[in-house]
């Protein structure tokens, strides 16, 4: 079974602080995605990384794919209350290429 472990599971910080969320696996993936999910809504795709070592930036969010394509990180600079959502990593796995999600990181940014 391919597992994507996210850490931390829950994080509470003050507005303006920086943070990093990690997504780790023992499996190698051809690509990895990060989603954000607001309460009562489905996950929304933020970014897809495909190359080992790749770094992508989306405003205050920086995503990195590990060199071995087994792990990824999401770094948020100067967190805002609007960043208070569930962050999910996901990757295609298995013989049928289904999307497998990580365990999730719930971020709370206090104003």
């Amino acid at each position: 079974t391919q597992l994507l472990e996210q850490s931390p599971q829950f994080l509470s910080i003050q507005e303006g602080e920086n943070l990093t969320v990690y997504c780790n696996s023992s499996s190698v993936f051809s690509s990895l995605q990060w989603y954000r999910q607001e309460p009562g809504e489905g996950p929304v795709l933020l970014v897809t990384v495909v190359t080992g070592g790749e770094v992508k930036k989306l405003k205050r969010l920086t995503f990195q794919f590990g060199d071995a394509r087994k792990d990824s990180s999401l770094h948020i600079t100067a967190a805002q209350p609007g960043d208070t959502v569930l962050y999910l990593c996901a990757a295609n796995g298995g013989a049928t290429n289904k999307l497998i999600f990580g365990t999730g990181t719930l971020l709370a940014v206090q104003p």
Partner: protein
Amino acid sequence: GAGVSQTPSNKVTEKGKYVELRCDPISGHTALYWYRQSLGQGPEFLIYFQGTGAADDSGLPNDRFFAVRPEGSVSTLKIQRTERGDSAVYLCASSPDSGNYGYTFGSGTRLSVV
């Protein structure tokens, strides 16, 4: 439609009853996925359709769960003899094909078994 539509948005049912959850994917998307999500956790894969056929049903927890997609568009997730442990948000997603990109999720159906 413009997005993935799931109905109902909320469903409360009594233990032991039968329920059906509906998913309307984005028009033209051949791949459709069902997931189940508990509060604060990542979605758990249930089943995935490519066209009308179930390409992977390895995530269905037991034989009380069944899903169909008879015309390759709308899909229905069926749960028989519901149990309190079935309470969760059931999410549906569709994508243009079964590749790595382009998943669009619906808002989910919150199922409460009382």
